[in-house]
Every structure is written in C-alpha cells, then in structure tokens.
C-alpha cells in the first residue's frame, strides 16, 4: 500500500544549474524516449535525491502500513480470513524489503533509511496514522487503501527508474490478490447481518476523509512538480490520481448500498468527480506528527528496532560487509 505523491513537499531546483548541461540534456532525452535509467547510469543529483526520498517513503509506508492491519491477524474471524490476512500483511512487509533494496541501488542503506524513519526525518503515507477500531476498518484498508495504492503504483511502474519499476511490477502482481481479498471481505459485510453492515458503514465514515487525503493536496495548492513529471519520477498529479480512484471505486461502494459521507460527491458531465474539498489543514497537522496514531506507529517501529539490535549485531559476526544491490 502507499500513497504516491502525498508526502511530497516542494523541491529546490537551483542545484540543477550546476549539472553538466550536455549530460543533463542526454538524460532528459533518454527519459523522453521512454528509456529506463539504471543505477550505474549518469543522473542529476536532484533525480537521485528525489527518487531515494520517494522510494524510501514508499518502503516506510509498507512497513508502517503493516501495523494497522497486522493487529487484526490474531483476531481475523475464521480460518479463511486468517490465512488471507496473514499472507496479505506478509506481502506488505515483503514490499518494504523489495523497495528498500531498490532505494539502496541509489546509495542509501536500509539501516540509514530506517533510522530516518524513526527519527521522523522521513515520512510515510499519512493514512496509517489513523486507528483500526474494528474488523471493518481492517477490511476498508485491505480493499480501498490498497485500491488507492494500486492506482499510484500502476502509474509509478511506468516511471523512469529501472529498479523501482521492476519492484513495482512485482508488487502490483501481489496487490491484485489484496484488492480482491479486501473486496470479498466487504461484500460479506455488506450482505451479512445488520451489525456487519453497520460496522462497515462506520468504518467508511471514519476512513473517507483520510482516503481523500491519501492522494495528496489538491493541484491548486500543492508544490509544483513539473521537473519531476518530466523526469517521470511523478507520473500524475494528485488530483488526477484521486479522480481515477473515485471513478473506479465510488460506484463499487454505492453498489453495496453504503453511503459515502460527502453530500457533494458526484460525477459531473465532463466525467470529473466533484467533492467537498478535504480538510488540508488536518492533513498537514497529521503529516507533521499530530495524528491519532503517529506516536504509536513510530514507537512500535522504534521498539522493534531497539529490541532487534542484538540480533542484527549477531548477524554481522563473522564480520560481513555492506554491499549495494546491483539492480
């Protein structure tokens, strides 16, 4: 899971003037031709920096994202759901592993990245700062948060950096089971008892605002990212991604007879979705650490890292050396 552009802040492009103009032009021409950049290719510093930041944030979102659903593994109702949820959350941790490796090809080690996550220097998807109160919240994530992530990931898989694209190809293949599983769970809640229906309706009410935040601030107020679009680091604007998500999933939610808590939500004649503008102040507050679960999520990670330190030390004996992945 993950929201693509949502943790993007503005970028400084002044360093670009210091790049070799011939190499830069060649680099841009290659991307324009649809070629992929590999770790050993020449690339501008800004490209490297932004990619590390993006892939790293994506990786963090996968491990932090494993937490809100992970707490339901031991409580999943029945064998079938239990097996699926275990496999699904395991996949998410696997996605983190894959993505950290992809980011490592750019020269930052997994340990440094995890340190930055714990120090709060590096962000992760905002949506995982909200709590999962009931089984239905967990189902909401499996279905709709993963759906949102897939919208982003499918787009990013067409980006310009080879290792990231390859990682995303594999991730998207696994996501298709997550999405189906999540939808299956929600169909059962929808067609189940009144209690089950109500459980999901309440989850939908709780999760809709963070879901709208998931794709990041609206294009009107978000930082300009033209250079990142040109370099195929960012593959679509936040609003485009959000619209695509709404187009695919609002009808499926309505089909199940649930009410989306936004009276202004509708598709206009030009095929674009209209909705109440999400509360971007709340978004900012949560992303800067003041959400319902930020502290808890990071604390879990911090404790896990601290408790695992002796294990990682013991793995380095006999002395092993850090080697960057190749592709």
């Amino acid at each position, binding site marked *: 899971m993950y929201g693509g552009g949502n943790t993007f802040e503005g970028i400084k492009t002044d360093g670009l003037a210091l790049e070799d103009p011939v190499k830069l032009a060649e680099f841009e021409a290659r991307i324009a031709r649809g070629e992929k950049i590999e770790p050993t290719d020449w690339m501008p510093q800004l490209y490297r920096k932004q990619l590390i930041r993006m892939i790293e944030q994506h990786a963090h979102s996968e491990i932090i994202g494993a937490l809100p659903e992970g707490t339901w593994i031991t409580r999943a109702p029945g064998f079938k759901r239990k097996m699926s949820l275990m*496999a699904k959350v395991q996949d998410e941790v696997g996605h983190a592993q894959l993505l950290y490796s992809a980011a490592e090809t750019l020269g930052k080690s997994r340990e440094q990245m995890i340190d930055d996550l714990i120090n709060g220097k590096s962000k992760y998807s905002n949506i995982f700062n909200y709590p999962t109160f009931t089984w239905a919240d967990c189902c909401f994530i499996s279905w709709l948060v993963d759906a949102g992530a897939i919208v982003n990931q499918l787009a990013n898989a067409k980006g310009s950096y080879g290792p990231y694209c*390859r990682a995303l190809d594999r991730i998207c293949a696994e996501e298709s089971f997550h999405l189906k599983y999540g939808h299956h769970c929600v169909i059962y809640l929808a067609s189940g008892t009144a209690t089950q229906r109500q459980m999901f309706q309440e989850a939908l009410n709780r999760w809709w605002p963070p879901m709208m935040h998931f794709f990041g601030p609206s294009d009107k107020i978000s930082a300009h990212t033209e250079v990142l679009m040109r370099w195929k680091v960012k593959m679509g604007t936040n609003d485009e991604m959000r619209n695509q998500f709404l187009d695919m999933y609002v009808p499926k939610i309505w089909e199940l007879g649930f009410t989306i808590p936004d009276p202004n939500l509708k598709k206009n004649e030009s095929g674009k979705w209209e909705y109440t503008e999400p509360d971007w102040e709340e978004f900012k507050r949560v992303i800067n650490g003041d959400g319902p679960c930020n502290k808890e999520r990071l604390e879990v990670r911090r404790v896990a890292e601290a408790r695992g330190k002796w294990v990682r030390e013991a793995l380095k004996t006999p002395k092993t050396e850090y080697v960057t992945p190749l*592709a």
Partner: protein
Amino acid sequence: MDTREVFVSPLTEGANNAYDLISSTDEPGPKKTFEIYHLVKRGKQHVHVGSVLAATPQQAMSEAKKQFNSGKVIYNVWAIASEAIRFTTSEEKELWVTLPDKKFRDASDYKGGDKLKEFLERNQSQP
C-alpha cells in the same frame, strides 16, 4: 550470492550493443564455468542465457560474445562464476511442494460474484 561476484559489462542504450564494447581476450590458466545473463530490454531484469568456460571474468565476457551475441541488441551482460552461485538442490525442491495449495495467495480465490448478485437481487426486491 554477493553482488561483488557479478562481473558487469558496460551499459548501453538505443541501438548500441553492449557486446560491441567487449574486447576479445584469451587468458592462460585453469578454466572454470561462468553463468551469463543478458539485459534485453531496458527496465526489465537480466535473464540467464547459458554458461561458458573461462579463466577470468573478462575472458568469460569474451567467450559469451562468441557464443551468445546473435546480433540482437543486448544492453548489459553479467558474468558470474558458477561456484559463487548457490543452486537449489533437487532435494530442496520439496520446500515448495505445497505452494500450489496456497490458493489464498491468488486473486482467483476470491470470487464474490455470487454473493454480490444475491445481495443486489435481495435489495432490489425490497421496495
């Protein structure tokens, strides 16, 4: 396997074949096998194409050029000494026998269509 064991050719683009940048070498000394991998499409993964006998990785590249350079553009070549690779033993294949049974890992195991249809019909029949 350690990535340092991978001997990597120059990376090319467009219509340039990586093999064109590999010079022929012949080296004395005892030979061992190297596994050869090709990158045939930018953005995809390297694929194993076969193995060669050589004394050094450089010579393995040069041998690969003789044997596997079919004229098709290859963007990158890897040569890895076979002994550096840990191969799966036939005994270990047992580890994966139950994999096909783990249907819950497959999207096709989640058919909600009937349940959904039944639900929609039930809803429609209500006023």
